[in-house]
């Protein structure tokens, strides 16, 4: 290192160029003792409320769990209700559809209503129904009977 060019070796660099307000250090101790007294009072107040400081976070946690549980239960309930409705509707429609095309019920109907009024036998009735009426006619008759 070239000491001739080393500007930091100039003694002026190490001198203190800063000043402070007059009497600053004289009042420092009293200001500090005042601040420490305030800190002690604040610390005492914090220590006199230990029960609430313990309960508060526990209550907050319990409330959060209750909220999450309630939301989850609500979503599950709603979903389950919709599924059941659709199932009932689907099963009801399927049942009705099956009933419409079941030939035994139609035979029962005509046996009850016609056979009593005439001397026609069962075979004659069936042949007549099969030859004279369309599927939609048969469905309409059935719907009216039930």
């Amino acid at each position, binding site marked *: 290192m070239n000491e001739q*060019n*080393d*500007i*930091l070796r*100039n003694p*002026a*660099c*190490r*001198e*203190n*160029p*800063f*000043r*402070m*307000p007059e009497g*600053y*250090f004289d009042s*420092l*101790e009293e*200001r*500090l*003792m005042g*601040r*420490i007294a305030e*800190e002690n009072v604040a610390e005492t107040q914090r220590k006199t409320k230990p029960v609430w400081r313990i309960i508060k976070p526990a209550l907050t946690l319990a409330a959060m769990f209750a909220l999450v549980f309630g939301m989850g239960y609500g979503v599950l309930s709603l979903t389950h209700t919709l599924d059941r409705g659709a199932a009932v509707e689907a099963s009801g429609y399927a049942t009705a559809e099956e009933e419409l095309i079941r030939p035994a019920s139609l035979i029962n109907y005509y046996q009850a209503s016609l056979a009593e009024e005439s001397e026609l036998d069962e075979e004659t009735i069936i042949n007549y129904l099969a030859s004279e009426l369309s599927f939609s006619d048969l469905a309409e008759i059935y719907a009216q009977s039930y």
Partner: protein
Amino acid sequence: MTDQEILQLYRSGEREKAFRGLVSSYKERLYWHIRRMVLDHDDTDDCLQNTFVKAWQSLDRFRGDAQLYTWLYRIATNESLTFLTRQQTRGGRLDLEAANRLSTDPWFDGDKLQLSLHKAIAKLPPKQKAVFNLRYFEEMPYEKISQVLETSEGALKASYHHAYEKIKAALKEEMDEKY
């Protein structure tokens, strides 16, 4: 009052007397150390008060394995670094702003060389600034600086050397070559 006398007073129950002894013994050294870090007097006052309050709160935990001197310097340096880092995270550099205001600062009596020097020091990263100030202005041994900053002596020597060269180059740019 010596460090031993302060600690003896504290352990015998005379806490306030011990604390006043501590403040009396260290207020000036710690003030100038903090002032060279943060530059502004009011900011220095805040950091210095925080330092002594923390020392008061921690004195019962002081084990005596380190000297009171290095322990207090550590608290003061950490307070200064926390202050400077807090300013950085807020998007500013109060120490740089303060350095730029030094020429019109009523609490700065330096000449052109000293003004340039402290502006160059203000541009260093906070921890490197602490290393430079403790070594250059206070001529603190690396062993003590290591205890204050909790950094190895090797790392401190490297940091100081880089800071020294950076500042020398910055001053050379600004000053007349006759210096």
